């Protein structure tokens, strides 16, 4: 295994991580371009399998999901997950996209990391992405009557938004 020293601790290099992870699921896209971390893009149908393997495999052991970001890339909606291992201290970024803007649906990961419960509700609230098997998927910040999803790029609110 390729190792490098960070803060006097041996961590897997991005290359070693990529070799290991690509052996689990074939159709993953890896890139380090424009980011300080290794980025994986995964198809929605493989998301849950990849995530549970990233957490449970002892070599990767990504047990700390520290950031869940909803994204609107224009044509596609999606989520960016930032993962860290508290034992190995390596960081990885997982991206998932869905082209369906009318009814975007992804699998939940809150059975893997409990923190995903609130984070996915926030993403649902602001981007309208639904999460399969989420135990309590409802709006978190906005009221239930709120129409639309404010952090989408095509959201319009002439009264409350100041456009420069």
């Amino acid at each position, binding site marked *: 295994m390729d190792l490098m020293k960070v*803060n006097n601790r041996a961590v897997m290099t991005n290359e070693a991580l990529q070799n290991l992870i690509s052996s689990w699921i074939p159709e993953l896209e890896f890139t380090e*371009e*424009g*980011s*300080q*971390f290794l*980025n994986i893009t995964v198809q929605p149908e493989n998301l849950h399998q990849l995530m549970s393997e990233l957490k449970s495999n002892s070599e990767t052991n990504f*047990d*700390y*999901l*520290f*950031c869940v*970001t909803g*994204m*609107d890339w224009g044509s596609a909606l999606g989520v*960016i997950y*930032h993962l860290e291992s*508290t034992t190995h*201290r390596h960081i990885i*970024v997982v991206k998932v996209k869905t082209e369906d803007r009318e009814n975007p649906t992804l699998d939940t990961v809150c059975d893997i*990391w*409990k*923190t995903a*419960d*609130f*984070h996915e509700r*926030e993403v649902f609230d602001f981007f309208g992405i639904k999460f399969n098997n989420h135990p309590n998927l409802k709006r*978190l*910040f*906005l*009221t239930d009557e709120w129409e639309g999803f*404010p*952090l989408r790029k095509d959201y319009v609110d002439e009264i409350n*938004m*100041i*456009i*420069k």
Partner: protein
Amino acid sequence: MDTTTVTNFKSEEYFINMGPQHPATHGVLRLLLTIDGEIIRKVEPDLGYIHRSIEKMCERDSYQQIVHLTDRMDYLSSHINNEAVCLTVENALELEVPERVKVIRTIIGELTRIASHCLWWGVMGMDVGALTTYFYGFRDRELINDIFEETCGARLTMNYNIPGGLMFDIHPNFVQRTKDFVAHFKTKIPEYDRLLTDNVIFQKRMKGVGILSKEDAISFGASGPVGRGSGYSCDVRKHHPYSALDKVTFKEALKTEGDSLARYEVRIQEMWESLSIIEQLIDNIPEGEHKVATKAVIKLPKGEFYQKVETARGELGVFIDSTGTKNPYRLKFRSPGFSNLSLLNHIAVGGKIGDLVASMATLDIVVPDIDR
């Protein structure tokens, strides 16, 4: 009472509303409690009363303007929040700030942490019925705010950091006043211990209450003193040092009990460590410029940038997705309070309402940090 008497009473669950205007929720946070007698069955936080959608506002603002929005999140860690955005922008621009800036940022960051913990300690005592602590905590916090006022021009929402350095150089009195404060506060923490930590009633309210295991702490994304009270080493200053934190030695405050008392003691210990960090730096502030020039309109290169810092509440993350223009395409704040609040239900279920108030005080929630 024998068991036959107990079964004569019917046990029924009902809802009770706590907040949004409740002194123990420290801001506009509403909790929907499911109660059986006085035993809590479920705690459901209702958020959004003061949500301003800072993330959406950032998409139309310049990077200099974004810094000013961040101290309206966790207003007790305002300097560290500002630093987080500045570091992200500087890293993206590959801008090396002078050593002087790094040291001053770290000193003020640690002063901010002490000020925040002073306030927390005051209201922590108040939440469990000891009003005196409130005045003691605020008395000492006031001294730090005076230092900030002199150097930054503001006491709370400081805006002292700008991308590229500091807004202006430190006040000539800064070094001496900070040293005076450190000397003063070293005599005060033992007073805090005598007044509250060693109090028998307080100990009984805290010990063994609101227990969070290490596995759950990691799974819930706990950070800051909440994580470290469960023996989870999560100090960003240790694992991903920034500014001048790689030049100082300090111990990460860790406790393994995972109860309310452990989280309390971690914060007390952190105040000692912060004093130690300040002492190591205050006599060695390097000479030099207090900023490097940046363009009036900052454009970040195309790409994604992430920076984490340790605020008084835990790990604050800033994620910027830039398309190369003067505004971020998407900016996400990973706030510590949001993840820490999500575990409230877990530690409160099975306890009493009074214990919920005490446990919540040890989570040290600041609502604008959650309602970003």
